[in-house]
């Protein structure tokens, strides 16, 4: 293909991102603006920003690739990533906004009045944030190599620099507009080429990719389409564990949670979440179609280069200048996906690092900027130290870790007065240690199969119950925090803002 189009697309998205970021800068002045856009973002905009931030490279390129390589089984990922917002909506959305905290550690401190619980939350935010950022940089490098031919480190560097420039310039306010733009760019970039691809497919006779006669790498159409069978030998366990991780993990992702504080009130937080569900649903019906078409038109990618199927299909099916232009549009969307998720995570991690570490030396905005540099540079360097892993695998582990630590903290903290500081701390430590062990094990060793491999690959199904049980048991045997204060917080979390109550 023509390399110029790919480079042009990347440059255009970068310029647009920086331009919108600078435009946002004019209205972003105080530290509060930097962190949470002064809490004045409308639900429609906020939902666009959450979706824009949430749809990472794993969604834009990864899902299509996974569906091509492994088939129907991979459809659980996007379903779980969307359903996580329904669980978030019913259990935490409004109370989280009403808690009045900026970050997850802020929530922990408000609920438990404990520096120790706060410190544990801070460490976990940074751990989950970096675990999520690392594959973003790796995947960005690989994707940019596919379309422009530049080496992977250069692609990752471009993403890191644009993210940093943008976050340093405007913080959360500029990020809001950038991410709304990036959601619609991603949706358009995926939907428009698909229209042409489907027209070509229908013109070719519309063979079903699940047809028994379509055999790729010895896998028949029926096996490929099966929603449970292909990988692993314990598909029912793996699927349910993945479901638990994605359903519960979403609420514990630091870059998702930080956006809830930008809602005007609890009702707006609910509305935002409802719109997010619709926006994500509209997006997630698209990537699997790329994977399915790839089985017919790019079966050779299934083995090694499945992640590039979304970028390759216009070339294979249409070709010529039309194919080049559509590939450029898809490249723009993919690059937007990397930028959006990385920016959101950077702001979230930098917010925590800045509040808990750097603000002791420098104050306010300078502290936040310093923290943002740390937040980007560490995972960028780690991306080259770690061995190459599938984006979805690492992202899946980040979800499992969030599900085993912050999800119980939030749900029990919001709905159960009996959760004590010691219980919360113990549960988060146990959940963090168990999933942390699974992460390291996955990064270091490759297992052939069997129960142990299934348990380590999808740790949520055992780590989450153990974490919850630890929180409940330890809480039963340890003293509660000041009950008057806990009751007062419970009132604030659950009552609508228009009731004139003492909310201090």
């Amino acid at each position, binding site marked *: 293909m023509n390399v110029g189009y790919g480079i042009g697309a990347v440059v255009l998205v970068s310029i647009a991102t920086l331009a919108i970021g600078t435009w946002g800068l004019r209205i972003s002045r105080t530290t509060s603006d930097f962190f949470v856009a002064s809490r004045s973002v409308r639900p429609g905009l906020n939902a666009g920003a959450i979706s824009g931030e949430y749809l990472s490279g794993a969604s834009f390129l990864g899902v299509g690739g996974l569906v091509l390589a492994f088939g*129907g089984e991979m*459809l*659980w990922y996007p*379903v779980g990533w*969307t*359903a996580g*917002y*329904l*669980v978030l*909506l*019913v*259990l935490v959305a*409004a109370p989280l906004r009403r808690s009045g905290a900026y970050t997850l550690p802020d929530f922990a401190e408000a609920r438990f009045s404990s520096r120790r619980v706060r410190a544990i939350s801070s460490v976990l935010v940074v751990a989950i944030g970096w675990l999520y950022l690392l594959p973003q940089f790796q995947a960005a490098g690989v994707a940019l190599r596919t379309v422009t031919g530049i080496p992977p480190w250069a692609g990752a560097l471009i993403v890191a620099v644009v993210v940093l420039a943008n976050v340093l310039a405007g913080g959360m306010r500029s990020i809001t507009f950038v991410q709304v733009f990036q959601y619609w760019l991603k949706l358009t970039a995926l939907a428009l080429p698909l229209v042409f691809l489907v027209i070509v497919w229908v013109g070719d006779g*519309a063979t*079903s990719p*699940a047809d028994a006669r379509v055999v790729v790498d010895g896998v028949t159409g*029926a096996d490929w*389409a*099966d*929603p*449970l069978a292909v990988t692993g030998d314990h*598909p*029912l366990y793996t*699927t*349910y564990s993945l*479901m638990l991780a994605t*359903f519960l993990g979403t609420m514990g992702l630091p870059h998702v949670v930080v956006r809830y504080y930008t809602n005007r009130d609890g*009702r707006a937080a*609910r*509305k935002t*979440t*409802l719109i997010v*569900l*619709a926006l*994500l*649903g*509209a997006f*997630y*019906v698209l990537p*699997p*179609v790329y994977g399915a078409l790839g089985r017919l038109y790019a079966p050779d990618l299934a083995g090694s280069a499945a992640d590039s199927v979304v970028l390759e299909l216009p070339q294979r099916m249409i070709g010529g200048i039309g194919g080049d232009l559509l590939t450029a549009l898809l490249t723009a969307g993919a690059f937007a996906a990397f930028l959006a998720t990385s920016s959101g995570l950077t702001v979230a991690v930098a917010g925590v690092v800045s509040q808990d570490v750097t603000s002791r030396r420098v104050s306010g905005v300078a502290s936040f900027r310093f923290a943002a540099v740390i937040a980007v540079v560490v995972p960028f360097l780690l991306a080259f130290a770690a061995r190459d892993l599938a984006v979805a695998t690492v992202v899946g582990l980040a979800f499992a870790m969030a599900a085993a630590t912050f999800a119980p903290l939030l749900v029990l903290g919001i*709905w159960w007065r009996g959760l004590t500081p010691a219980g919360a701390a113990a549960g988060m430590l146990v959940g963090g240690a168990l999933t942390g062990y699974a992460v390291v094990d996955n990064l270091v060793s490759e297992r052939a199969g069997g129960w142990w491999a299934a348990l380590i690959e999808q740790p949520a199904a055992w780590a989450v119950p153990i974490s919850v049980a630890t929180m409940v048991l330890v809480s039963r045997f340890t003293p509660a925090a000041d009950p*008057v204060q806990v*009751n*007062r917080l*419970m*009132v604030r979390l*659950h*009552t*609508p803002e*228009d*009731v*004139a*109550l*003492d909310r201090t």
Partner: protein
Amino acid sequence: MSDPRPPRVRVTGPHAARPRLRPRPTVASEIDAQSDLGEIYVQGLLRAQLRLAVRTLFWLITTVGLLPLVFWLLPGIGDHRIAGMPVPWVVLAFACYPVLVVLAWRYVRAAERREADFVAAVEGR
């Protein structure tokens, strides 16, 4: 020149001279004071919202949550086609999302209704 008129005297009704009655306690002040009455109102709201949340999660589990089990118990379901696509694909790739949005929409409406009831109970009377 001195003014012959007497100085002004404030004329007040006899009621104001009486010691002021304490303002009638509002539900909001009962809640703030964490009295038993305030506790009843807050508990009522909390339980109602939690029941609603659990009910919504129950629907999530009985729709999307049961799918793996259904596919596991009925392996032949993939042979059935809708518009050329295996049934599990139609369900997972497309039909799940509207279900999630509808569940969320119904939840938001119900949760707001419970909050409106609470506001009416606290302020209306």
